[in-house]
């Protein structure tokens, strides 16, 4: 049909393409190589679910490429692109947590019920995992962005959509709680 044949032109046509796509295929491949692993780590450690992290990471990149207001790597730089990507991932995580948890047992993967042995867990997982599980989801995100990614308060505000002033206080409290939990675990392991 007429409109279907006109779509490739609408998508791939010269100026409109540059206006919509934040980067070309090769630029994206490079950006993906540099950003995918930190993004996956963020999603996996804040959600505690590697399978969910796989899905959300892929969805974040696809949405990044499709979003009409994605920052362009050429004009705004990779840092802005990465921040925008983390923002998408943060929103996806938040949507996941808000969704009512109604899943059938048939859909649950087999390894969901199998508790991994200590040998399967890395040192950092054994130390950070239980402490992270006791934190609120938003605090996990704030702590990861601040201490693993090294984002400033204003950058975290941009990623999470929270006010910069409130992040300072929230982060202070979350860090204090996390330090207490980590300290307790360390003392427990040495005893």
């Amino acid at each position: 049909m007429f409109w279907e044949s006109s779509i490739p032109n609408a998508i791939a046509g010269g100026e409109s393409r540059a206006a919509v796509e934040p980067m070309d295929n090769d630029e994206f491949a490079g950006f993906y190589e540099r950003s995918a692993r930190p993004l996956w780590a963020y999603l996996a450690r804040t959600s505690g679910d590697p399978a969910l992290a796989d899905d959300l990471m892929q969805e974040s990149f696809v949405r990044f490429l499709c979003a009409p207001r994605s920052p362009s790597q050429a004009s705004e730089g990779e840092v802005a692109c990465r921040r925008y990507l983390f923002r998408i991932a943060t929103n996806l995580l938040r949507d996941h947590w808000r969704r009512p948890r109604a899943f059938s047992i048939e859909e649950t993967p087999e390894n969901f019920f199998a508790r991994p042995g200590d040998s399967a867990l890395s040192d950092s997982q054994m130390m950070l995992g239980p402490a992270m599980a006791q934190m609120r989801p938003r605090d996990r995100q704030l702590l990861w962005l601040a201490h693993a990614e090294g984002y400033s308060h204003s950058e975290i505000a941009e990623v999470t959509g929270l006010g910069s002033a409130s992040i300072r206080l929230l982060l202070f409290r979350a860090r204090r709680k996390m330090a207490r939990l980590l300290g307790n675990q360390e003392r427990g392991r040495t005893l």
Partner: protein
Amino acid sequence: MMPGTCPREKEVKQLLERGQWPQACASELRGHVGGCRSCGDLVLVTTAFRRARAEASAGVNLPPPGVLWWRAQLRRRNAAVERIGRPILGAQIFALCVMLLVAAGFVGLELRNGIGLLDRLGALPQTAARTLFDHWHSALLDTTWSPMVLIPAAATVALLGGVVVYLAVEKQ
């Protein structure tokens, strides 16, 4: 300043970000961190998170970027199809509404004039095609029926005109 924060926290944070903690820092600062709760918390939490980030990043199997690129292209194409199809759907709904309106008007008119339609329908099997043709012919010539013919005709022309203009603009 936040209650419980330390003025030397920034210094410690910079060392942690550069990966210079604890080897490349003064023993005096190490001593301070040992005694200061705020700086101690910062070191403990940042070290744990940095280690977790490095380990998690190293152990992940990533899908090839081409797959995601292709998925994004497909999604954008579908979005474009949907965007283009939306006015057409609107036009279809509008046409349906006009037809329903005309049908309601027709039924209303028939009810007001008595049950002439039912009589005509009852006579239909007996007289077959000839009677149907007569009804249609008389309906077209009847002046009371002319708005019933004119309204849908005008609506159809307007609708088709809108679609043609829209497609022409889209093509440009």
